[in-house]
């Protein structure tokens, strides 16, 4: 039996890239072309976070029309599973005190997030046990 190695997109957390996220590989989930979109006079970590934020702000939708969207796929769930949903600079240091259930019913949180929206995030968004570790 042959085992196919899959790679995770470092921008959106898509876990089934056929090749490492580098050298012009395009992620079908967020559309990032590694080696193009993540090139600039900044660190990779900064660029990946910025690309992630942009994708999330646009609704975290499936990008590719060539690669079919997996059944039941959800961009926010994917970010949570990868521990990337709250990987925003302004959220670092936040202590999560309650709740372990993820809800998707407050999309406005993602439309204009920032320091002033922290209360909204706490009120409407709950963290899964996995994402708590990411904070």
């Amino acid at each position, binding site marked *: 039996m042959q085992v196919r190695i899959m790679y995770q997109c470092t921008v959106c957390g898509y876990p089934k890239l056929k090749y490492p996220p580098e050298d012009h590989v395009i992620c079908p989930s967020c559309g990032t072309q590694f080696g*193009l979109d993540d090139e600039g006079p900044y660190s990779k970590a900064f660029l990946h976070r910025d690309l992630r934020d942009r994708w999330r702000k646009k609704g975290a939708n499936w990008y590719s029309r060539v690669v079919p969207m997996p059944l039941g796929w959800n961009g926010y769930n994917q970010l949570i599973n990868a521990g990337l949903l709250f990987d925003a600079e302004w959220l670092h240091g936040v202590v999560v005190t309650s709740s372990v259930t993820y809800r998707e019913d407050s999309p406005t949180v993602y439309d204009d997030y920032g320091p002033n929206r922290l209360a909204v995030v706490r009120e409407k968004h709950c963290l899964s046990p996995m994402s708590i570790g990411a904070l």
Partner: protein
Amino acid sequence: MYDWVPCHLILLTASTYLEHFERHGADFGASTPEEYEELADTFMYGELLSSTKECTRPRPSPRTICRYSAETEEYGVKREQGYLVTYFIPVPLVTHRFATNLEYYRHKCK
């Protein structure tokens, strides 16, 4: 088709080829993948014009060859063995974060 090639060989397989067409076909007004491929072939395998720069990147392995035209702003990458990787027109500060495409090209050729 090439699903089980060694992982260090990133080829334009049937799916990745379509992904690159999907992403960059519009850069050239290509309406079909075949049209995109033809344009890419012409740029990457055609004669090296005076306005076009070419470099061989030492990394990743296997080595890749980049071409950039300062005149048309076309940019392409192929493997040293000849496989085409990608072909597009970069947009400064949008598709990459450098101020010019020449900076991007130079960065990629380091």
